[in-house]
Structure formats: C-alpha cells, structure tokens
C-alpha cells in the first residue's frame, strides 16, 4: 500500500521521473559535486555569521545593559547595534542573490544534460 502511494500522483503526473541509477549518476557527477561545494562555500559561513551576529544582540543587551546604554551621538550602542541588524540582513541577502546566480549556472548544465538524455522531456 505504502509503496504504491509513493508513485501514485494521478491528478498531476510528475514532470520528470527517472530510475534510481540516473539520480545516483547525477548525484555522483563532477558537475553536481561542484554545485554542492560552491553552495556550501557560501551558505555555511553566511548562515553561521548571521546567527552569531544576531544572537550577539540579545546576549549583549540582556547581560551587558550598562555597556549597551553608552551614548553614541543621538542614540546609544544598543539602538545602533539593533539598527545595524537590518542592514546586515539586507547585505547578506544581496550577497546570496549574487552567489545564487552562479549556482543557477552550474545547475543549468546539470539540468540540460539530464533532460537531453531523457529525449528532451
């Protein structure tokens, strides 16, 4: 029962089906390994950076409120740091979009190859 369910999407058939060997072949190809490596090089450090940068805010504000209350110009350190979070998030998003254009190029080669070997479907 369960096994049949997996293959039964009668209302809308899958747009690309392939044998396990095909998927394994693509997964082990150099192009795909390159794509994954390229993604990792950007995403892992970007993710770690934003998590550390973001949680520094509640940690500093919560455990060093005196320090964060130091006046800087019109405002204080706490407000400036909070405000900076918005711009840092936007910058990371912008850098990601730039990097992702490169992922798309690598993925497109894999897609073209896979679809042409399927007879253009």
């Amino acid at each position, binding site marked *: *029962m*369960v096994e049949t*369910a*997996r293959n*039964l*999407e*009668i*209302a*809308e058939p*899958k*747009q*690309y*089906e*392939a044998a*396990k060997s095909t*998927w394994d072949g*693509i*997964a*082990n190809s150099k192009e*795909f390994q390159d*794509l994954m490596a390229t*993604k990792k090089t950007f*995403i892992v450090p*970007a*993710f770690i950076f*934003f*998590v550390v940068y*973001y*949680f520094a*805010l*509640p*940690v500093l*504000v*919560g*455990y060093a*409120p005196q320090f*964060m*209350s130091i006046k800087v110009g*019109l*405002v*204080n350190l*706490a*407000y400036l740091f*909070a405000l900076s*979070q*918005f711009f840092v*998030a*936007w910058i*990371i*998003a*912008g850098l*990601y*979009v730039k990097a*992702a254009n490169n992922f*798309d190029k690598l*993925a497109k080669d*894999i*897609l073209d190859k*896979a*679809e042409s070997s399927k007879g253009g479907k």
Partner: protein
Amino acid sequence: MNISLTMFLIFIAITLGITYWASRRSAGSAAYFAASRQIKGWQNGIAVAGDYMSAASFLGIAGIIAFQGYDGFLYSVGWLVAYLTVLLVIAEPLRNAGKYTMADVLAYRLKPRPVRGMASLSTLTVSTFYMIAQMVGAGALVKLLLGGYVTFNQSVIGVGILMIVYVVFGGMLATTWVQIIKAILLMAGTFLLSILVMAHFHFSFGQFFAAISQVTYHDAKGAVVVKDFLTPGLRYKPPYGPLDLISLGLALVFGTAGLPHILVRFYTVPDAKTARHSVVWAMVLIGSFYIMTTFLGFGAATIVGPDFIKGHGGTNMSAPLLAQALAGNVFFAFISSIAFATILAVVAGLTISATTSFSHDFWTNVIHNGVERKPGEEVMVARISAFVVGAVAIGIAILLGPTANVAFLVALAFAVAASANLPVIVLSIFWRRFNTAGAVSGLAVGLLASIGLILVSPSLMAIDPPTVTGTARHLIQAKAWFPLENPGILSIPLGFIGAILGTLISSEPTAEEKFNELLVRSNTGLGAEKATAH
C-alpha cells in the same frame, strides 16, 4: 456614518471583487492551492510580507515600544533576520521538491502516510493556534476601531465570514491579492505616519531622540516617572528576561522558516529562482516596516504618551491614537482600516495553509493513498475544510471572549514551527541517514515539548489576584514551573534530538536510497512542478 466603518466597507468591497475574479480561475488543485504557480516574484514578495506582518506586528510592536521602549524594538529585529533562514536554507529546496505543502518534501523519501499525517497535525496546530490568537485580537480591535458600532462577537463573526469567503471561493489567488493589497496599504500607512512623526519634531532626529530620552508617565502606584526609553531592560528584566529574549530569538529565527502559511507561498511562483527573489522582496518590505516601528512606537510614547493610551483602549491602540493625534479622525480611520486589512490578510493566509494541508496531506494522501477518487475532490475537500476551520475559529474566539489571555498562542505557533517543522525539513533535505521514524518522532517531540512547556510557563501558570476573572485568569493557578514565556531554547533542541534519536534506533534502507533523488531535485530543480495555464 462612521469614517472608519466606511473605509472598512470599501476594503471589503474591493477584496470581494477580487475574490469573484479569482473564483473563476481557481479550478483544479494547482490553481486553487498554488494560484497556478503564476504569481510573479515581486508579487509573491509583497504577499509574503502581507501574510507575515500581522496585527501583532503593526499594533502590538508599536504598543510595546510605546510602553517599554527599546525592548519592543528588539522584537522588530528578529522578525526580519528570521528571513535569512528562509532565504539561505528553506525556500528554494522546498519549491524545487514540493507541490503544495512542506510534507511533500518529507514524503519524497520517507513513508508518505505517517509523515504526512504527523506533518498535517503539526501544520493544523500551528495554523489554528495562530488563527485563534488573531481572531480574539481582531474581535477586540475591530470593536475598538469602530468605536462601539459593533460588538466583539459581531466583529469575530464578520472577520471569520470574510476569511471563509476569500478562501472558499477565491483560493490561493484571492488570498494572494488580499495580502498584496494589505501589504501596500500597511507600508503606505506606516510611511505616512513616520513622516508625520518626524514633521512633529521638525524633521530633527536630535529633537526626536531627545524626547525619547525623557518619556514621562504615571506608574502603577500613580507616581510620575521620567524614563529614557532607549535604554534596554524595561521589559526583559533579570533574572529570566534576557534568557527569554534569546529563546524568543531562536523561535523567530528557526520558526519563521517552518510556518506553514509562509511556506505555502513559495509554491505559488514558477520556479526556485523566483521563490528566491520573492524572499528578497519580502525582506526589503519587512525590514523597512520594522525599522519604521521606531517612529510608530517611540512616536506614540512621546507624542501621545503611555498615560493617554492606557485610558483609550490600551497598548494595541498606540498606532491608531498616534495617527489621530497627528492628523485627525480621517487618518485615524485610515490607519484603523489598515489594521483591519492586516488581520484579514493574515487569517486568510492561515486558513488556506490549514486547508491545503488537511486536504492534500491528510485527505488525499493519508486516507486515500495519494489518489483523487474523482477530479476536483481535493479542492472540494479543501473548500469544506476552510468552512469548518473558519467556523471552529469563530466559535473558539467567541467562547474565549475579548479579555482572554491569548498572546501566548503566537509564541506557541512559532515554537511548534521551530521545534517540530524546521528540524524535520532540514534533516530530510540534508541528512542521508534520516528516516520515517525520525520524522515522526521529531514532529511529535517538537510539538509536545512546545505545548507542554507553554502549559507550565508564566503565560498559563500564575497566581492571579481575585480581581482578575473569567478567561483573563491564568489556566493553572500556581507558580510557573518553567520560567520562560518562549520555550524555543529548550523545545528546539528537543525537537532535533527527537528526530535524530528516532532515526538512529531504526533502519530504513529505502529512505537512504532515495536521498540522492531528493538531493538532486531540491538542489537543481530537475522535475520541479511547473506553472500551469489557466
């Protein structure tokens, strides 16, 4: 006639017109659940923002800043930063490998029936809790905004019926456009309000921040207090405040990417690249909005003042009262109708995500093994369940009444999303060894840990003075066992541990065999669902 009421009616008329237009384009599952995957990137970005920025953000955060200053602004930060998780980790793989729900991605290599059943339960829990919180808030708010023209019950019923109509007749397409219009109104209103606040201070940040540094009000004992509202710590006080704040941050950063009503939005666009661009659009809008809460919240604190707000409807009325103080009754009515639009757009989004999961995951795939017995059954079941979900939400909101303590329901929704949904989505995409037992136990542990910890938190456990009555009283009259209002710091690790342990104590070779397929599909978009013609 009351100006607010007129504006509400105009908004209702426009959205019903859209629903009528959309109803003629909502035949078939892909059209009904995913707007035929033809929504453009910028449109979806605006709709994500409209789906996400609830009345709790617009009125709630402005209110918290107006009363507790800087700590309220801290809230704002987390709501934007959370989208980096959506952008970097979730949106594209989900769009590439799924059809209508997050469970589609899980079901790829795991046993579909158990994982869809659990995922559907978790989705319905998140959506229903979130919806009840919105409905109770909506009832109280609409009553206040319309200045006594309608009762609490009438407001709840009105909001409920509208959300049912949008979803039942207009499906995802109508919901999307309601969210787009709401987001544009919200941004416009917030921008205008911000400009007016700065105009009040003669466009001088010096004067603005000088006023913030000496907000004057009366404390609970009636003594006059002058406080610098830019100082942290007015809300999150030791010993547990800072930890609660971190826990909230965790729930936001990991929960947003597990919110079903946000995730379903990524199926409405043609491909993963468009999904990515829509997240960026959403981040621009959401970020700009939350930066402007500075003007709304601190503006209300300095121009209107906490004392006046307390006497005229309480924290949630901060932004509308600020509008009234700055530009009179017409602007008050405009801001009020934006709040109303905000509530409607969010509840419609929640309803469609709940009904999609019930009909696609539970009805079609769990009960009927993935087969639609007759064409259009899936959509028919969704329409009926939208009706049921709406009726249940109306009923519960009326039973709870306007004074019910429901703020914790939003914290609960985020906690479940972060502790149950996110771990299994991430592990399913990234961990080859992951299997069905892991997914089911991860979802179950995350769900139970979130609910259990909230149940024994200060949100539901406290000793009330006898003056507090009815549903405003805490459920359990005893000292809270768990000191934090946000369970994320404990429930998220528990969710991950549940998923990992469940995986390790069982073995499922087919799940590992199909990992390469999911890996290739989610990372390249090979075989991803394409846009369909109307």
